[in-house]
Every structure is written in C-alpha cells, then in structure tokens.
C-alpha cells in the first residue's frame, strides 16, 4: 500500500507529530523569561498581575510538595502530583470569570487554588476521609473525577444548561458564563471525551476543553494515544484547536481567556492543548524510572514554569527581594496549614455511609444501618461488661 492510494503522507501534512512543541505553539514568555508577541494572542494584564501569577505558582507547587510529603509520611494514601504543570493550571485558572464552572480531573490542585478552594479540602479524598470535601457550587469547582474523561461530558451538559438558562451570548460580561473541562493526553483516547467533543460541537456549547498534554499517561507516552498533535484533532470535530506552551503562564492565561470569552459570547467550544511535562510520577504509587529517560526530565527542567516568571520579574526589576521573601513566608504558612489541618481531619463515622445514598433512606438501607449499629454496639456493651478498654 502506498501513500498515493490514500492521499498525502500524514507526516507531510502535520509535520513530525510529537517532536518538540511545533511551530504553532503559542508562547508569550520564553523559558529565559523574555516576553514575546504573538499575532493572535497577547497578554493584556499588568506586571502586578504577573506578580500575582508568581505567587499562585509558588503556592501551588508548595501545596503539591507538602501533600507529597504527607503521603510519604503515611498521612495520605496516595497523591497525584502536578509538578511541572503549575503554569497550565494557574494560567487557565486565573483566566476564568467567577461565574464560570470548572470540571477538573484529580490533578487540578492549581486550578482549585485559583478558585479559592481551601487546599486542605483536596486532601480528604487522598487521605480517605471523604470523596470530595468541598461544595462544588460554592466555588464553581466540580468534584475531582477519577474515571478518565468522564467529566468532559458533565462539562458539556452543564454548558448546555447554561444555554438554556440564557446566560450565553447576552453581551453582559457579568452574566455570560462558560465551562472549562480539564483532562490529560491519555483521556483523549476515551470515548467519553470524543463524545463530548461531538456534543459540544453540534450544540455549539460554551465549553473550553483544556488538555494538559504532560506527555505521559502513567507509563504510556503520547505516541500511544495519537499519531497527530492533539490540538489538530479539534478541526475534525468542527472547532478550533490551539497548542499553547503549557509552561508559560502568560500564554495559558491569554489563550484560555480568549477561548472562554469566545464560549461566553456563544461562538462555541475551543480545544486547548497545553504542551507541558509531568515532572513527577503519575502518583506517589508510580515509578517513572521504569519507563522514561532522565535526560527528558533534565531538558524539561530548563523550561520550568516558575523559573521563567522569576527571571522576568527580577530582570525587569518588577519585584524586589521583599516580594520574593513575602511569597516564601506565605508558602511556609500554607504548608503548615496543610500539615496541621491534614492530621486534624476527622475520620468519617462508618454509620454515616448509609445517609447520602438516596435523598430519602430506603427501608432496606434503614434496616441495614440499624442492624449494623446494633452489631457495633454489641461490642461496646461486651467490653463494658468485661471491664475492658476500647
């Protein structure tokens, strides 16, 4: 079989699929901390905002490091680190309006930070004291979703609800609302993600698909998921796809802001591929030395999302030593908050598991709960009668 039989060679159309970021990468801040212009996307914030990004990035990394440490100390069962993906999350998270709704995976700790979710609340799931300890409606930040890609359909349905509520395309910026769905490169192989693209496209739903391509789905490299750059898939579904430097907080901010605005105005979905790298393991249970080269990691270290912002702030004299010291102090404080708060998280009571299965307890569940309570209390009376200690 020759290429002539089936049209042009894929390589000649799309270029080498996964080698480097590619010519279409949107970048507004280089790894060296130099500002860059882009014909379509520009950073419209102030230096003060960039100082804010720096703070967010440092705080996010510190939260992540503290949670990893807590797992190592046995206080969390597992932790999914976002190390290396801080800019993708902070840039996109800060581009949202308060009324926008976020559908995260289980790794969006930086987005949670931007939505003012107390990072302590994130730990509950990983410690095993709850399955989502925040109220999604309070911060417009959904529960972490562990089934890969399932949340993209929820995001699209929610966006269809926004259309029906008349909060899309009214040209009132405080009213118009959009949804952002987060997922990874591995998720793009899931049926649900592809179905959500179709739904969003045919219903013109106000949803932004934000894919953090961190190159790895546990041990499987991106080549196992796609033969073409992910952002190019969007075209086939009927909406724009953009590849952005996922380690560039300014570019992630600018591109997400434009895409969300587009969605709010009623112009439909956008796919953003934030090209980044998972600097850590998939989770604390994973061992990446079994499947990837340390030199890749070293190369990506040169593109660190925080270092380039720090370089920019220092070079331009935009922030002084006092600023950096203050951020450091604040990071220490949040780490203490996490550490102390984690140890103080109350364990759930086993009898409470019966209470939130249904809006009203079924006779079966009520019976099971009562019987189990009797069973448990039989031990109490036993130990009381024998004078034992609990």
């Amino acid at each position, binding site marked *: 079989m020759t290429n002539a039989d089936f049209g042009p060679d894929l390589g000649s159309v799309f270029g080498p699929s996964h080698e480097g970021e590619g010519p279409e990468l949107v970048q507004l801040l280089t790894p060296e901390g130099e500002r860059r212009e882009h014909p379509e996307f520009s950073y419209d914030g102030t230096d003060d905002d960039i100082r804010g990004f720096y703070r967010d990035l440092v705080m996010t990394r510190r939260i992540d490091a503290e949670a990893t440490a807590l797992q190592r100390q046995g206080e969390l069962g597992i932790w999914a680190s976002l190390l290396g993906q801080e800019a993708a999350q902070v840039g996109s998270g800060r581009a949202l309006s308060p009324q926008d709704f976020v559908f995260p995976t289980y790794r969006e700790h930086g987005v949670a930070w931007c939505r003012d979710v107390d990072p302590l609340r994130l730990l509950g799931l990983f410690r095993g004291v709850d399955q989502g300890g925040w109220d999604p409606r309070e911060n417009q930040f959904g529960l972490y979703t562990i089934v890969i890609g*399932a949340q*993209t359909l929820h995001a699209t349905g929610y966006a269809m609800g926004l259309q*029906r509520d008349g909060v899309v395309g009214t040209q009132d910026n405080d009213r118009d609302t959009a949804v952002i769905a987060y997922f990874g490169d591995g998720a793009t192989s899931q049926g649900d993600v592809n179905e959500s693209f*179709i739904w969003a496209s045919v219903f013109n739903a106000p949803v932004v698909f934000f894919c953090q391509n961190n190159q790895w789905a546990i041990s499987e490299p991106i080549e196992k998921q796609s033969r073409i750059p992910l952002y190019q898939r969007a075209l086939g579904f009927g909406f724009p796809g953009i590849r952005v430097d996922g380690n560039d907080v300014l570019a992630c901010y600018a591109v997400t802001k434009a895409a969300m605005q587009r969605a709010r105005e009623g112009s439909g979905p956008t796919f953003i591929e934030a090209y980044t790298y998972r600097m850590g393991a998939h989770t604390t249970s994973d061992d990446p030395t079994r499947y990837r080269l340390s030199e890749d990691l070293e190369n990506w270290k040169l593109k660190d999302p925080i270092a380039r912002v720090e370089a920019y702030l220092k070079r331009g004299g935009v922030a002084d030593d006092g600023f950096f010291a203050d951020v450091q102090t604040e990071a220490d404080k949040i780490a203490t908050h996490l550490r102390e708060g984690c140890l103080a998280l109350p364990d759930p009571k086993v009898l409470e598991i019966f209470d939130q299965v249904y809006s009203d307890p079924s006779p079966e569940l009520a019976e099971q709960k009562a019987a189990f309570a009797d069973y448990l209390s039989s031990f109490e009376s036993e130990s009381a009668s024998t004078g034992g200690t609990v």
Partner: protein
Amino acid sequence: MAQITLAKALTNGLRAAMEADEKVILMGEDIGKLGGVFRVTDGLQKDFGEDRVIDTPLAESGIVGTAVGLALRGYRPVCEIQFDGFVYPAYDQIVSQVAKLRFRSGGKLPMPIVIRIPFGGGIGAVEHHSESPEGQFVHQAGLKVVACSNPVDAYWMIQQAIATDDPVIFMEPKRRYWEKADLDESQAEAPRGLHSSRVVHEGTDATVLAYGPMVKTSLEAAIAAAEEGKSLEVIDLRTLSPLDMEPVLESVRKTGRAVVVHEAPVTLGLGAELAARITEHCFYSLEAPVLRVGAFDTPYPPSRVEEEYLPDLDRVLDAVDRTLAY
C-alpha cells in the same frame, strides 16, 4: 374516561411532568420529530421545542453523561435509551457518576435523572433489542429501579420518577406498549407511591411475584389456574429497587408458597434476591422453597425461538404445580 395504550400513557405522563416543571427536559435518539422509535415522545418536541426535547447524537454515554451536567445545572433530564441492549455504552456514566455523585459529594449533588429503557422480548426483534438488564441496575447502590406493567401505572409512575431527587432507571415493558386500559388523568394525585408493590389478583394457594411484561402473563396464569381450582395471588412488584417487601411477605405468610417470574436470566436475577429475603423473613411460613421462572443463562436467542425461550403461562403454571407438590 378514555382507553389508552401504555405508550400513550407514558407520552401523557411526560407531557404532564413537562408542564408541571420547566426544568424537565427529554434527551435521546430520534425522540424529536420521529417521536421515538416507539412514539413515546410523539408530539412533545413540537409542543415544548428543541431545547426541551433534544434529539441527541448517537452515543448513549454522551446522553447520560451530558444529563449529569444538566442535572448539576438544576435540570431534571429524562433520557431515553432506544433499546435495552444499547444501554451498555452508558453503563460507566450510570454506575460511576449518576449513581454515586450524591454519595461522593456528601449529599450536595443530587442527581434527579430518569433513564427510560424499553426492555424485554416478545416482539420478534433482532439481537440486542430484547434484553432484560434491570438486575444490573438493582445491584448498584444509588440507583432506584422501577418497572411499569400497565397504562395507569405508566402514566403515574413516570411522573413520580421525574419528581424524585434520585436517579431512577425506568423500565418499560416494550411488548406491552400497545396494551390498553382506562386512564383517568383528572385525578390530582397518583393512586399510590412509586416504591410500592401491589396485589393485582388475590389468592390463597401460592404467591406469584412479577413485574413489567410478566405481570400480564402471571395474571393469565392465575385465571387458568383458577379453572383448575388453584387460587394464585399475583403481586406486581412495580419497584425493583428499593424493594417493597411488606406486601410480598404478608402474601407469602398467607400462602406459604412463592414463585418469582421474570424475563431476565435466573442466576443473580431479582428472583434470587426475593427468594433470599422471603426465606429469611418467612422461614416458618414456607411450605416449599421459593421457585424461579426466568430466562436460561444464555444470551437472548434468535427471535424464531423466543416464544419457547420466554417464560409464558405454561411455565408459570408448571412452577406453581411444582411448588404445590411439595
């Protein structure tokens, strides 16, 4: 009072629910202009518009997954799965998301979603169009499962399911869609609660438990048995999860014998659960073990043999004879 088919009763029930609450929306394949392959949504898109009666792309996980998002936004989606055998692509969304979101969120995220599934065989269909997957949903904590058997129940139960703040799997007996009954829609309230079982034929010798399409079969068996001098009590379970055990236990304590009838395979089917509970609660009243009449543990066969394969009047009577012979 007009004679009305079960399918039409569902249409009218859906219409009433949509009139009562503007957050009720319907989603599914071919449910708009066509009115659904069984015409259950006939005319609703014309009257309520394309935003409330949504013709979806052909992807069941997409239907249920987007319904989750709509429910999070305050809507009450009613999803139509075109046929029983097509629900499996949506299985993950139903089991991992719809069923668990209330629990995972500590009660903060209710999921008022109804998933309508025409189920069961007997219409001469090709494969995947005649299955009885209800047991798989009964097994999932967080879901409620009901099955209607007649037009009056269909009309009221669909409205009650839609008004429920929990997800309801709503099983529709497809081969009974064209059965007719008198329906009085002027009543202000449903005659009974959604999760209640009901004695539909009184008797004293044995209790026959059925739901959905098998209720009619069981009633016919009761009439045939009466001609032989055997008195069968038939209970239409109506609710499969949670079960309403009181009427069942009361009946079995009276008759001492129970036969469970369903189209689903017997292994781990609802009959197994009912047998266990009856045994636990009526042990000293039982004169015979609880018997089950259901499908064999085979896939649903080609339709030319479905009449032999499906439980029918004779197989119900055979089981009745066996329980009476103890």
